[in-house]
């Protein structure tokens, strides 16, 4: 924690002097930058990203060993290829599919958990460490601080997704051949377009995390304990995922933030099937609006004692 505080202490005067010179946009940017630096310098963040980067490598090695005897079909006997994460059957033929498989494997749990840790820590962690009031002493304003915190969390979503994708691409390129690929509709696209789609998919996955980031931030404003906020966020994530599996709750499913997460795979269809992707984005935007404003309402009125 001392490391965090020193970096914060370094960042503050700089931000304050910027505020004196050009208040407004530039100041906000300064605050955002100092938040980013603080967040990404934490060992916790680096460890989370390290774990995320390891997942695709593990999947790649496992598939490589499994198919090392020359058989190239991913599916077991009886056409059991539908099991396991999506796209896993195609990895051996094209390393680029490792990107999709890795994202499909990490999206249900690893990625949102990492985001939940960062988002839950955003306000509650500062309050816990006793740094929140110093942040508010500077003429930042609570709204701006909250927006900065949310922007930092969103940046983490994108970075985390790109880390998974990049690590998967590297592992896929090393372990398996690359080349033209077949979409799940059976049409062929060039490797360049495949890369472009992979980037789109990574962005779609990052956007899928908007909802839980907003939820985590709201929970973070409710408590002064960073651990409690993280645990609650991750707990909610698991609860929602379980509820999403219960058929009797069918009518509620479209409103769970995780319901359309796998829609990113629709980007691999030809023609792309946009309906679920749009629904996903709309739902994430709704969660961001509801819990973002709830977090704002709570944070504006919160007694900051630490």
């Amino acid at each position: 924690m001392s490391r965090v505080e020193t970096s914060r202490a370094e960042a503050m005067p700089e931000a304050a002097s910027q505020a004196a010179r050009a208040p407004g946009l530039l100041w906000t940017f300064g605050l955002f930058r100092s938040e980013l630096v603080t967040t990404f310098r934490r060992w916790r963040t680096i460890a989370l990203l390290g774990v995320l980067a390891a997942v695709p490598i593990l999947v790649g090695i496992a598939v490589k060993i499994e198919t090392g005897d020359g058989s190239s079909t991913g599916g077991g006997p009886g056409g059991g290829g539908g099991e396991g994460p999506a796209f896993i059957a195609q990895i051996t033929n094209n390393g680029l599919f490792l990107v999709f498989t890795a994202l499909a494997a990490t999206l249900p749990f690893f990625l949102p958990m990492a985001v939940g840790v960062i988002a839950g820590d955003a306000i509650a962690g500062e309050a816990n460490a006793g740094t929140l009031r110093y942040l508010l002493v500077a003429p930042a304003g609570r709204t701006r601080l909250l927006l900065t915190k949310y922007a930092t969390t969103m940046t983490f979503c994108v970075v985390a997704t790109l880390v998974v994708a990049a690590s998967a691409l590297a592992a896929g390129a090393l372990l398996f051949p690359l080349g033209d690929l077949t979409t799940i509709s059976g049409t062929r696209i060039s490797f360049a377009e495949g890369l472009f789609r992979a980037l789109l998919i990574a962005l779609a996955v990052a956007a899928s995390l908007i909802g839980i980031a907003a939820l985590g931030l709201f929970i973070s404003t409710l408590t002064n304990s960073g651990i409690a906020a993280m645990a609650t966020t991750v707990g909610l994530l698991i609860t929602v995922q379980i509820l999403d599996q219960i058929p009797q709750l069918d009518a509620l499913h479209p409103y769970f933030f995780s319901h359309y997460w796998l829609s990113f795979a629709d980007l691999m269809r030809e023609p792309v099937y946009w309906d679920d992707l749009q629904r996903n984005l709309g739902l994430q935007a709704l969660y961001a609006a509801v819990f973002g404003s709830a977090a704002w309402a709570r944070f504006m009125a919160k007694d900051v004692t630490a």
Partner: protein
Amino acid sequence: MAPYESDDSARADDAAVLAAEAEEVRSARRRKAARYLVPVTVVGVAAATIGLVPAFAGSGDPDLPKISAQELIEKIAASDVQQVSGTVKITTDLGLPDLGGLADSLGSQMPSGGSGGDSGSAAAPSAKLLELASGTHTLQVATDGPDKQKLSLLDEAAEYSIIHNGDDLWAYDSASNEVYHATDAGEGEDSKGGEDRKDAPDASEDVPATPQELAEEALKAVDDTTSVTVDGTMQVAGRDAYRLVIEPKQSGSTVGAISIAVDSETGLPLKFTLTPASGGAAVVDAGFTKVDFGKPSASTFDFTPPKGAKVTEADEMEESGHHDSRFDELDKGLGSKDAENSKASKDAAGSEEDFASGLDGLKTIGKGWSTIAEFDTGAEGGMPGGGSDSTGDARVDGFLNSLGDQVKGDFGSGTVFKTRLINVLFTDDGKVYAGAVTKDALVKAANAAE
């Protein structure tokens, strides 16, 4: 603050201060509450949007010139849409338990089951199309003239595509990365297969039109037993459409009404809904959610098996003698969905009875909507699989027993298997009566046959 001083003027001041403080606290509280109004408003607006938008969208029935049922049917018949692509949503609710599991268990039973055994291919069309018989499915369809069609069944992070391009017919299952391939040329050897194959392009000519096939199927049944009316207009996939309603006049049928939305410009049926006489949700509801009459890009119909995919040739299956039924089902799948569905439900209820005994003893009783098919399986005991071929049938037997209703009548006794559309009566002396009719009508038919 000194609220208890006895000076009168001070007391008045204090009261003012107190009032001001109280006011401040109240206003702070109000501001606090007002802030929480923001998320509440967002939720409210979102709920209102979700709740009201479909209602508004549905209320605006398009204003179209009046048209008679005859004219509308002619419009459908004259419809010559060569190029179309779009998204089709199919919801089937036959009132059966989850068919997925049943299909699996039947798949391992049926000699021709696509997923059965090691020699089968997960990409073979029969098993996949059986999935359509329950639940909601989204399909993407594209067609460009009689030679090029594509039909994809969208799955979670996977897709099952059937692509017909010239002489080639490909089926690709992306989940298992398996390919099924058939060519026109490879068909000629087998006479029956060849015949089927000749029909296939004709049938698939209308793939654009999954709903079109359905409509034609339904219109075949039009005679004095049926009433056909045009019932207003509606919007389907953003297009103005007439609503054609077909209702059986006879009693005893389980079919309540069939409603077909016909595109007012092209005459292409856009939506097909079959509601049961018993009420409730539609048994079959198939319609475009998006439709585009432009030319689909040529690359849509190009297919090269992906590297490393397991390719099963239809010829190989032919050698093992199972290929015909696959094609039957494929043609049905490409063509008429309701035939597929009724087939599926018969499969479900009748197990492999159909396959085992063939249709040797098939007779039909009655006509029109309340037609009942009767066949004699010759198997004592009445239960499917209970006779000749009982190996490994225990699961199916148990499953069917749990589904059936025991009935008695002049014919003796038997078991009725009910779905929301098709009912099947197995008598204990080995006769089977099946039809889209009520249980009572089946019993009556069985009594009359005795």
